[in-house]
């Protein structure tokens, strides 16, 4: 921390109503000869109720540390003179014309400033309730927060909401600036009352600010220079507090988590590498480490950590955007969570208890499909129940709400159609964070608190149709076989499709009531809701055709065991016979065939297996 600069304080501005726009020299440290190679960068967000002076705090901080080009201040002053408006430091930040017209911060803006110790970005986040989603955007980029309160107006609903949101976003370093102290004549008792009220509120959220600082941003008091009017205050100035915030890099010592962002196989120039890429959220991994992909459960061992050039790194760690190769060929798909086999693993669940902040104008409701994004995964989810909605005024949880409205903070239960790999927020925050997509929009954000046991009720389809009076047994007697769905699965849609067609022909020739259903590719996780609807239709067709006594043959390329579980549930009580080819080890297939097998040979093997299993009659003679 820097000591207060007494000599320059003597030149401080007089008092309201005539703020002194930088008649004083810049107070910054001399330019540093230290390379940014060695300096860290800290992202700080400034939040506060509208008009509480947040932009003025930042404007003053930048001006008084000499972080503005000279011309900038002059230009803004000239602009104010032209428009016959009193100069305000906040105008410095109002870079856009439309924002100046409205006089409020609409969107998060980045302000850069440096000290001898560190480089900073301050995210100026809007205070107006309409722009909460922008405030959250700024806050989620930050490691520390300055929360500005107007001493004259006191703690407002938005001050409480901001406190809550910062806590939910996981920002643990917060300093509360009680601004406009000059309007209270720098009265210590009034200041103490505000501190007590807000500290009490934040305390109930589990938030314990590092400091409360009485300031007058307009006059520059306690921003960079000490306020002469408050000899009773012996805490840090804003700049000292900012310099004291820490960069939290403890993620290195926690279990390894890497959401699998993509799998690259660039073949140009004879490149044979299959590279699994992602940004490491926490922990570290080295060649030779055994790793597991969740939720699929596929396992392998790290072979190399790749780089553009130079020697290969011997470790990938938290914060790095990395890429690695594996010793065995596994078809882990983007969206999975990669973890180390020798460390505490994440949880898996389909039902998640979570805190959510809702941003969309359409409320979060039951009976609608949303997409949950957690790590790199995208999973269809529904709202199962609203446990409580927070009332910011009283900080009381209100139960009995059926939905979550815009700007509500709520505790909810989400139900996913397949297991999600995550960590509870109190164990490993980064992999507890999620957003909810509604339509094309990021509609909500939150953290998972815990996984709940699977629901006991039928999560599968509500049955929309039923057969008539002819029983399956009667049909089996008439046709000489029961209805059954036979599904070829494998990496290649095309190969599986050819095998399915070849099997249909053989079944038909044997007198089996068979039908080959050509199924368009399910698609990847870029459209999980479309994929899910597609799978559901297939399941319903499988149920209807098997209920009609037919042996249905279909092929599905890129499926996993959760897709198959859903298919089985939809076709029930009729059974599904799964034929896997190639890497289908985790699919629990009824029959596994080598990937190299040609369509006719695969169909031949399948026919024999089906006959041996009693699914279809054996060949006559």
């Amino acid at each position, binding site marked *: 921390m820097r000591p207060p600069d007494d000599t320059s304080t003597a030149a401080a501005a007089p008092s309201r109503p005539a703020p002194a726009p930088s008649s004083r020299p810049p107070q910054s440290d001399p*330019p*540093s*000869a230290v*390379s*940014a*190679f060695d*300096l*860290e*960068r800290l992202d700080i967000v400034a939040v506060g109720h509208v008009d509480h002076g947040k932009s003025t705090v930042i404007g003053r901080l930048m001006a008084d540390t000499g972080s503005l*080009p*000279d*011309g900038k201040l002059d230009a803004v002053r000239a602009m104010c003179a032209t428009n016959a408006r009193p100069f305000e430091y906040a105008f410095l930040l109002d*870079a*856009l*014309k*439309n924002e100046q017209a409205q006089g409020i911060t*609409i*969107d998060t*803006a*980045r*302000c*850069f400033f440096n000290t001898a110790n560190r*480089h900073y*970005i301050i995210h100026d986040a809007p205070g107006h309730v309409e722009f909460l*989603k*922008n405030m*959250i*955007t700024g806050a*989620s980029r930050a490691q520390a927060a300055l929360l500005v309160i107007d001493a004259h107006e006191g703690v407002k609903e938005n001050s409480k909401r901001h406190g809550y949101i910062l806590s939910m*976003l996981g920002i643990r370093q917060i300093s509360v600036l009680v601004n406009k102290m000059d309007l209270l004549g720098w009265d210590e008792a009034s200041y103490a009352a505000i501190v007590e009220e807000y500290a009490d509120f934040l305390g109930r959220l589990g938030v314990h600010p590092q400091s409360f600082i009485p300031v007058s941003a307009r006059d520059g008091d306690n921003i960079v220079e000490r306020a002469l009017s408050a000899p009773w205050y012996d805490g840090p100035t804003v700049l000292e507090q900012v310099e004291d915030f820490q960069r939290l*890099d403890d993620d290195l010592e926690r279990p390894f988590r890497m959401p699998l*962002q*993509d799998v*690259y196989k*660039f073949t*140009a*120039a004879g*490149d044979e*590498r299959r*590279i699994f*890429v992602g*940004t490491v959220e926490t922990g570290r991994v080295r060649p030779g480490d055994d790793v597991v992909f969740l939720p699929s459960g596929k396992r392998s061992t790290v072979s190399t950590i*790749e780089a553009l*050039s130079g020697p290969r790194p011997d470790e990938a760690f938290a*914060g*790095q*955007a990395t*890429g690695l190769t594996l010793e065995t060929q596994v078809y882990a798909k983007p969206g999975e969570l990669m973890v180390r086999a020798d460390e505490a693993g994440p949880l898996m669940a389909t039902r998640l208890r979570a805190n959510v902040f809702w941003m969309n104008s359409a409320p979060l409701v039951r009976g609608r499909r949303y*997409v949950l*994004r957690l790590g790199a995964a995208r999973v269809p989810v529904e709202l199962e129940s609203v446990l409580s909605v927070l009332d910011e005024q009283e900080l009381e949880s209100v139960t009995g709400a059926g939905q979550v409205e815009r700007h509500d903070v709520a505790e909810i239960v989400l139900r996913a159609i397949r297991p999600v790999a995550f960590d509870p927020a109190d164990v490993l925050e*980064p992999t507890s*964070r*999620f*957003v909810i997509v509604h*339509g*094309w*929009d*990021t509609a909500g*954000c939150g953290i998972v608190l815990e996984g709940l046991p699977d629901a006991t009720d039928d999560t599968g389809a509500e049955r929309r149709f039923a057969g008539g009076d002819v029983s399956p047994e009667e049909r089996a007697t008439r046709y000489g076989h029961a209805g059954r769905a036979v599904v070829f699965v494998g990496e290649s849609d095309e190969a599986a499709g050819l095998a399915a067609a070849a099997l249909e022909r053989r079944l038909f020739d044997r007198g089996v009531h068979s039908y080959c259903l050509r199924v368009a590719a399910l698609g990847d996780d*870029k459209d999980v809701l479309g994929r899910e609807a597609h799978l559901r239709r297939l399941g319903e067709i499988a149920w209807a055709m098997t209920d009609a006594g037919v042996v249905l043959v279909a092929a599905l390329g890129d499926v996993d065991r959760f897709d198959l579980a859903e298919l089985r549930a939809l076709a029930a009580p009729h059974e599904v016979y799964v034929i896997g080819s190639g890497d289908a080890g985790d699919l629990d297939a009824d029959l596994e065939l080598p990937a190299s097998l040609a369509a006719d040979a695969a169909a031949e093997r399948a026919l024999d297996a089906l006959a041996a299993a009693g699914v279809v009659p054996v060949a006559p003679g």
Partner: protein
Amino acid sequence: VNQLDTLEAKSVHILREAYRSLGNVCMLWSIGKDSTVLLHLARKAFFGHVPIPLVHIDTAYKMPEMIEYRDRLALEWHLNLVVGQNRTALEEKATFPDGNVDRIACCRNLKTLALKHTLSGEWTRQRMDHTLGRLVDDEDHTPYTGVIVGVRADEEGSRSKERYFSPRDVENDWNVDDQPPELWRYFKTDFEPGTHVRVHPLLDWTELNVWEYIERESIPVTSLYFDDGTGTRCRSLGCWPCTSPVQSTATNVPEIIEELRTGKFSNIAERSGRAQDKDDGGGLESLRRGGYM
């Protein structure tokens, strides 16, 4: 963890996210230092491959060194280089150097319009033919639905409010009052068909970060950035009629870094040598709303 590592990781993550989630995405390469850093980051993200086309808008008033440097790197790094140009405006001499329009209109014609119609595929694009070693007319007219751009938040006001993933409507309009939320590493990657997306991986980089990264990674830049013996150099590259050099005797990257660190330019905006900014009321806002990057 130093800040260049942090910045690099975030940018690489964004590039990979854009490549994975946006359909036909391209990257803008102005030949300047920022977009060349972006290109280097792409080579890192994709381990030496650049699976994204690099679009260069050639105003025909770029300095010859820039074009020579562009073609050399394109061949050396096997880049899928795509070049667009407003041929009509050039033929009709609707340019500032021809004295027929002002600087702003010239920028609109040669850059904004050329970019718009190159991205949409309406105007003929040229593509680097690596066998012939030169540009040829491109048969492909598929529109690009997303474009990766090397703008930085510290350059000027409107850029400080950009999202990493920013939707633009069919007219390229930027609705700065209603931008999508962006949380943690969850960028907006779901878009209504027809949306044009801009991706900004370098938003959090400063001019100093860019030069220190160029030094650390030995990224080649054009000689226009260095003093050629006249005591001046370019700090921001544009078309020669509208780009004026700064007073500087820096002849290499470490000397530029030293200039920036010691605050030689702290009172001068980076784009101060770009005349069109001044004609646009001191900011790029009206140009940017119309689709300027």
